[in-house]
């Protein structure tokens, strides 16, 4: 299988604090990867390095064999879309306008929105179950709906890779499941590579093909869930004792002792 993102010996620091300490990573095309790790382990920083918002001071990142820092912003946006942690906007837009912004990398300056643009926007809004909300203001909808809007905007870019930064934080269990189901569906039906940071270990094991366990800016483990989520690994990284239940499911499930 070919590689979607290749991270080689990446180091990153904020002023004097080293956050990523020589990371090596191959992310397979079409896979669903969750990045786990305690607060401050470098999950978000890694994600931001992979989407060119932050630049490593050492090492290189390749997207589809191209060096990330050589790719133009617009070109990158056609391959990769990012869903950031939810922030409250200061300015009012309706949902439709926001999703339409995702067409930006495909549009020429001074051009009107083409029929293709509008068709794609309609389709991704139907796929993400927000078509009914299109006239509503971003201020009027719930947190779960807002997350769908941002995912729809990302899908309007028609990306091959979708990065998500804690997409289910601050959502109730029902919305958590529905967002993850949506990601899984995109992953299977559209072959979009999904890379997401998360805090919920159990949900991560259930939905992911692979789990990356980060500890102080280093790869502690990267493999299928049943090999990464072990009592030993969790204790080493999080410093808590857990019990593993497999039950009838293949995926591991942990409960704190």
């Amino acid at each position, binding site marked *: 299988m070919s590689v979607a993102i290749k991270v080689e010996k990446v180091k990153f620091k904020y002023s004097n604090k080293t956050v990523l300490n020589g990371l090596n990573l191959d992310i397979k095309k079409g896979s669903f990867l969750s990045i786990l790790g305690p607060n401050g382990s470098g999950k978000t920083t890694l994600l*931001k390095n992979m*989407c*060119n*918002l932050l630049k490593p001071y050492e090492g290189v990142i390749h997207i589809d064999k191209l060096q990330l820092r050589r790719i133009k*912003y*617009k*070109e*990158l*946006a*056609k391959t*990769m*879309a*990012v869903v*950031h942690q939810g*922030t*409250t*906007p*200061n*300015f*009012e*837009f*309706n949902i439709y*306008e*926001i999703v339409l*912004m*995702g067409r*930006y*990398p495909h*549009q020429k*300056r*001074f051009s*009107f929105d083409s029929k293709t643009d*509008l068709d794609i926007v309609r389709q991704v809004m139907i796929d993400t179950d927000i078509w009914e909300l299109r006239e509503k*203001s971003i*201020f009027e909808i719930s947190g779960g709906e807002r997350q769908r809007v*941002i995912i729809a*905007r990302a899908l309007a*870019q028609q990306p091959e890779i979708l990065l998500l930064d804690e997409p289910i934080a601050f959502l109730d269990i029902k919305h958590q499941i529905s967002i993850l189901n949506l990601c899984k569906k995109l992953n299977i039906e559209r072959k979009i590579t999904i890379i997401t940071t998360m805090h919920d270990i159990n949900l991560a094991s259930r939905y992911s093909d692979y789990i990356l366990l980060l500890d102080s800016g280093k790869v502690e483990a990267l493999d299928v869930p049943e090999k990464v989520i072990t009592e030993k690994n969790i204790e080493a990284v999080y410093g808590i004792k857990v019990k593993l239940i497999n039950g009838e499911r293949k995926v591991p499930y942990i409960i704190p002792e």
Partner: protein
Amino acid sequence: MQRERGFIIKIVGVAIILFLLMIFATTVGSVSVPVEDTVRIIASEIPRLGALVNIDEIRKQHVFIVKKIRLPRIVLASLVGAVLALVGTSYQAIFKNPMADPFIMGVSSGAAFGATLGIIMGLNVGFFAMGNTAVLAFIGALVTTIIVYNLARVGNKISTTSILLAGIVMSSLLAAGISLMMIFNHDDLARIVGWTMGSFNAANWDQVTLLLIPLLIGLVVLVALSREMNAIVLGEESAQNIGVNVEIVKNIIIVVASLLAAIAVSVSGIIGFVGLMVPHLFRLIVGSNHKKLLPVSLLGGAIFLLICDTIARSALEGMDIPVGIITAIVGGPYFLYLLRKTRKNKLI
């Protein structure tokens, strides 16, 4: 598509309102010129149509008043209003702050400092349509903006907080300088204060020409960047991730908007409220989509300042009130009302 057509119709509608208001404003003033005569005088200036209109019977004095005094002033006030609103909208977008105004980067205090210098020193640096005061105001505005811009820039990144702080500190410094000059030059006090309150009483056609070309260029550049502005107000990181080169876009907008603001301030003095209130008002009506907001604000700014200037020159018999006073009196309470009304269910 349907919605876009509806919007274009509304824009044309607002433009027609502006045009009618301009004609109406031409009839207002201390010397009363009949509406019919006014329309005929204006029509006579329009190519082709002009040949069909006979203005020989209208009193020469009226023709002079309409053509040389009222019309340039009306057009200039509308243009300055349009520029201020356009600049305000753009600044509010790139600073992601609905409270930003055209003077945020120190344009006004820089211009006031330059103008004050021009008034007390009586320098002779007039250029084209700009008198000494205007030229020095323009230079002051530009130099201040460049200083603030460079203070706030690290590499090619611009920090909004640094811009705000640098702008405030530069303004205080310059205000101190202005006060100092005023203390030592009592005779010029009235002129300095008068200039800083803004007025169009010396408007002429050359000033209009001077402002029209930059306005058109600026309008094209800023409207061309409306998609980028939309993306930026929702967050710079996500804007970059949908393909916007955020730093380049911000730099272009700052340079274009500051130049426009400097030109406007140098011909009109400091006119507050237009650039802050008009974009804010129209954001409540058409939303934050800059494709719509920029053209609507531009027309709205023109209408607002035209109305204020018409009040300024006709409210008191034989006296021209500085228009900055009118904009504050008209705009202030309305703005506070909006703030109260909208704060209940929204963030801004």
